[in-house]
């Protein structure tokens, strides 16, 4: 076979760096985050947006949502949704709080119980989706209600109330609870969780075999199966991932506030999906990035706190959110066409 002189191939056109950048999934979220930052830096700088406490506050909001968005984005790239994240937050919170407050368990054991429960819920979600091939949207919507209902029901049954508080003393000095509480260099520990998870999952998604499988399962599950990807296992692991992300969120919140409430986490499933979509994940799966979701969450946090700092009525936050989502989806659609069609 003739060797091909690459330099002489008239069909190779120099692809500019700009063009390459344009076809990255996270482009929209990164540039959006920069714009939002500049906007609030101008509008709300003298109201504390750029002060250390200000930055710390919007980073914390971003971090908490970001942790959920990382799980949600991986699952979306794998072609599925998880609407039970929000209810999982409340369920995991109670799974920690009740054993500690009512049965006097050490905190670490309660945390492990909550994570075990999360893995179980993720497994059940994944298995039902695998077995029935129903849209995960519907399956996890059912679990949104089931989990919330179970949480309220059991909490009332055991404690007679919907809130369990006074957990701070138990968390104090617990060897496992310590990684979910306090500040490091003045910044809340949730920010480190967020960044740590982002680095870890980005590495998994882009550099490992499992990451390749996630893209394959989301792109075309049948084709992935035919080429030897254990599609069912990948899905179950991804559903476990979203449930675990929700539990990390719950642990951070329960330990920080010293209380759990059956109503925690409402609408978080949608916020996580919005952050993932702003971050460039396609609703149809097979495309997206964790870095994008991280920036999607950052936009979220900056806007939410930024509006608060500017003193504008926070009701407007939702309007902004909806518009962002719409723009992001349009933009992603455009990017995907670019990536797969004419080039």
């Amino acid at each position: 076979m003739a060797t091909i002189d690459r330099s002489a191939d008239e069909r190779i056109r120099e692809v500019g760096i700009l063009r390459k950048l344009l076809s990255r999934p996270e482009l929209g979220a990164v540039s959006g985050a920069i714009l939002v930052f500049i906007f609030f830096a101008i509008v709300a700088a003298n109201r504390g947006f750029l002060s250390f406490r200000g930055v710390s506050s919007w980073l914390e909001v971003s971090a908490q949502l970001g942790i959920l968005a990382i799980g949600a984005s991986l699952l979306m790239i794998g072609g599925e949704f998880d609407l039970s994240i929000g209810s999982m937050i409340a369920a995991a919170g109670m799974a920690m709080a009740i054993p500690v407050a009512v049965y006097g368990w050490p905190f670490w054991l309660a945390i492990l119980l909550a994570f075990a429960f999360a893995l179980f819920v993720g497994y059940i979600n994944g298995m039902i989706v695998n077995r029935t091939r129903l849209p995960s949207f519907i399956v996890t919507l059912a679990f949104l209600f089931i989990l919330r209902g179970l949480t309220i029901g059991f909490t009332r049954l055991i404690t007679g109330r919907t809130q369990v508080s006074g957990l701070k003393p138990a968390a104090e000095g617990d060897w496992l609870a310590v990684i979910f509480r306090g500040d490091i260099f003045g910044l809340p520990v949730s920010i480190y969780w967020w960044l740590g998870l982002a680095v870890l999952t980005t590495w998994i998604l882009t550099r490992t075999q499992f990451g390749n499988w996630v893209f394959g399962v989301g792109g075309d599950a049948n084709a992935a199966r035919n080429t030897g990807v254990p599609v069912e296992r990948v899905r179950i692991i991804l559903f476990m991932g979203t449930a675990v992300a929700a539990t990390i969120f719950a642990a951070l919140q329960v330990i920080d506030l010293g209380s759990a409430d059956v109503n925690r986490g409402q609408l978080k499933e949608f916020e996580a999906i919005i952050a993932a979509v702003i971050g460039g994940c396609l609703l149809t799966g097979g495309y997206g990035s964790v870095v994008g979701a991280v920036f999607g969450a950052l936009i979220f946090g900056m806007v939410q706190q930024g509006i608060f700092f500017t003193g504008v009525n926070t009701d407007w936050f939702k309007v902004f959110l909806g518009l962002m989502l719409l723009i992001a989806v349009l933009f992603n659609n455009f990017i995907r066409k670019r990536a797969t069609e004419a080039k």
Partner: protein
Amino acid sequence: MTTPLVELQDIVKTFGSVIALNDVSMSVNPGEVMCLLGDNGAGKSTLIKTISGVHKQTSGKILIEGKPVVFNSPRDAQRAGIATVHQHLSIQPLMSVTRNFFLGREPVKGWGPFKFFDKNFGDKTVVAEMAKMGIDIRDPSQAVGTMSGGERQCVAISRAVYFGAKILILDEPTAALGVKQAGVVLRYIVQAKTRGLGVIFITHNVHHAYPVGDKFTILKRGQSYGTFAKNEVSREQVLGMMAGTEELDALQSELEEFARSDEAQAKGQASQYEATAAAEQALAKELHQESEKVRKEQN
């Protein structure tokens, strides 16, 4: 006698009320190319899907090197050394060429939980393997969705050839290919055979099947019509079996019929033209005479 690499015994496969395969038996020996022939919907793809672990047969046995096997997934079949190019290719349009090529069988580097996808090795391998097919991969991180249909097919084929350890199954691999690439695929088949692999080759093109095939199995409406060694049949007979001789005859007379009516139509048209031409000439003559008359009168 050598044990066959793959042997199917009385395979039945039903989809609900559809009987896609009914008691099909066949075998492929090492170093042998078996062409699987048959009409559209005969069950060829269904048959090879049971061998490659996509479908589980309703009943019947699959033996690999004499041992009965049960494949619960395509992954199991791959572990047994079976590589397949499916008719619909199993290609991920949004993923890069390299990621597609190695999907499910990623080359990894590193240790324990820190194993990672060796992208460098992957890119190099892909460029080299595709160059062997005469396809120049400009950028291995290019999304496959941006490639032409034939190029995509070449990715799927070179992937199977690269990973096929014992058995190579090709379901209409030459369908969308140019003459040169189809030639490469046929050469691959022969190379695989000389390396001692068993090849199952599905095609509707007798010019592709006959030169490389050692034997020909004909499927018809889900049933095996028989297996014929190459020395038992001529190219024309194979062609006849592919379409059914009666059908071929019918086709031929139909085509002749077309030709005849074409001719008649052409003749009819010609006479029509002649008539018009004659009329025009007559008219021209008349006009000429008239103008002559006018000129005479003026003089």
